[in-house]
């Protein structure tokens, strides 16, 4: 136990001398890194604009209120597209994520040496790139539109769903699998009766959770041209139609809140 020897006897302390020095050095380094980073940001900023910001914000606020309520008539189709992008994208992603998850889970992969790393690479690479970047890429390849949005959402979600799913598969109760195997079931039957029922609740939870996230993400995909309400947002921003922008932001906010409520309800019902 680290103690300080004082004339009145030893006093307890949390760390030894070396530990506290190391701790202090760590904090110093961290602070220095932060200060350097802040310096970089500060250098790249036009501070005049920042001091002017309250006036600009007030200006935008007066331009944006009240929202142009009539415009909502034109938002029906984009909202439908947005919901479709999220839903179909999630379905496609789940369809693709299930095999990837089974290949990536240690207890179901056919080959831990060759197949598993490939599946993990698919998971990491699809997960680390944002759906907006996937959308940019897919628009260059297959052209702008809802289809590119669906594909972008689907690809981005594969990694997310597969990662959570393979972790669920690795945590299953092995005895149930053994019991099914003992009846002489084939590989596929073991999967259908031993593994799938155990991961079904996790699967449903992941699906709804990801759907909720995808609703959020699909609202902004239109900014790069991949369909949905973001398209309207982008054109309103480009024409400085602030009353339309504020209405679109309100609609997005409502959509996000509703989707979160729905997903919380469904997850509550499942678990």
């Amino acid at each position, binding site marked *: 136990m680290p103690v300080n020897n004082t004339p009145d006897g030893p006093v307890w302390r949390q760390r030894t001398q070396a530990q506290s020095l190391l701790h202090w050095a760590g904090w110093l380094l*961290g602070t220095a*890194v*932060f200060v350097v*980073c*802040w310096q*970089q*940001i*500060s250098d*790249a*900023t*036009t501070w005049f*604009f*920042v001091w002017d*910001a309250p006036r*600009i*914000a007030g200006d*935008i606020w007066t331009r944006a209120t009240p929202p142009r309520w009539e415009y909502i008539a034109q938002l029906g189709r984009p909202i*439908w*597209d947005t919901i*479709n992008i999220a*839903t*179909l994208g999630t379905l496609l992603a789940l369809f693709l994520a299930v095999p990837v998850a089974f290949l990536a889970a240690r207890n179901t992969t056919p080959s831990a040496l060759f197949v598993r790393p490939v599946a993990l690479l698919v998971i*990491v*690479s699809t*997960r*680390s*790139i*944002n759906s*907006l*970047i996937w959308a*940019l*890429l897919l628009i*260059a*390849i*297959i*052209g702008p*539109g*809802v*289809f590119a949005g*669906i594909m972008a959402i689907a690809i981005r979600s594969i990694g997310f769903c597969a990662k959570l799913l393979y972790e669920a598969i690795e945590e299953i109760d092995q005895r149930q699998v053994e019991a099914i195997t003992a009846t002489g079931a084939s590989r596929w039957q073991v999967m259908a009766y031993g593994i799938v029922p155990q991961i*079904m609740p996790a699967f449903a939870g992941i699906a709804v959770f990801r759907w909720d996230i995808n609703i*959020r*993400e699909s*609202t*902004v995909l239109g*900014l*790069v041209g991949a369909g949905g309400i973001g398209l309207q*947002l982008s054109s309103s*921003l480009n024409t400085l139609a602030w009353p339309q922008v504020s209405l679109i*932001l309100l609609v*997005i*906010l409502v959509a*996000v*809140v509703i989707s979160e409520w729905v997903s919380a309800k469904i997850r509550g019902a499942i678990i």
Partner: protein
Amino acid sequence: MSTELETLIGRPWRRPPLIRRVWLRWLLGIGGAVYLVAAIASIEVDWARVWIGLDRGAQFVLAFTNPDFMSRWSDIWAGMLESIVMTVAASVVGIAISIPIGLGAASNLAPVPVYLICRGIIALSRALQEIIVAILLVAIFGFGPLAGFLTLSFATIGFLSKLLAEDIESMDRSQAEAVRATGAGWWQWINYGVQPQVMPRLIGLSMYRIDINFRESAILGLVGAGGIGATLNTAFDRYEYDTAAAILILIIVIVMALEYLSGIVRARVQ
């Protein structure tokens, strides 16, 4: 023998249905099918355009085997550095702000007015997408990493405070009460009764959030809020797939490194 068992004997076992109520099962099934048909029918796909584009897709995939780091290296380097700088600064500030808000949003610590205010801040931050916040902040503060830094800090607050508050709400009350029983003041109570219980999870979540912040910082450049996104967008617009592939590879490598690091840190603190 009961008659129920009698009727079951001799019949093959059937898997119980996922949804027990028959009418609900049919309703959900038919509703889902109708929605799917309507949704798929409303998508217009220009297959000819897709067919032409597949060529470009193949080029892009090939570019991954031959990424070009060199010809735009100075742009890539500047963008990456800016992304990292934004991530570090925003994570530090975001985490520092989200701790008091997380404390305020825990219903077992905070008085009701404070609780409501903090929950309101969290709800606002979670409901607004990063990229939308970035658009507004770019309009207000001008182009550059400051808008990105503020966006990421704001998003960090919503994420971290909510999870921290939930962790505090589910903590072990008896430990906190034991500290309180020694006559500790409010700060001592937080410091010795609450903080040790939530610290491992807070560190884990913070590492995870740094990871997310870096990923998000890669797209903020699309709307002018600094970072690698602007370079990436330009590369796509100019069909320089080899440069785009290089940037994407760098992003993936950094995210993987961060995940590995956070795995080590989380394993150590838990």
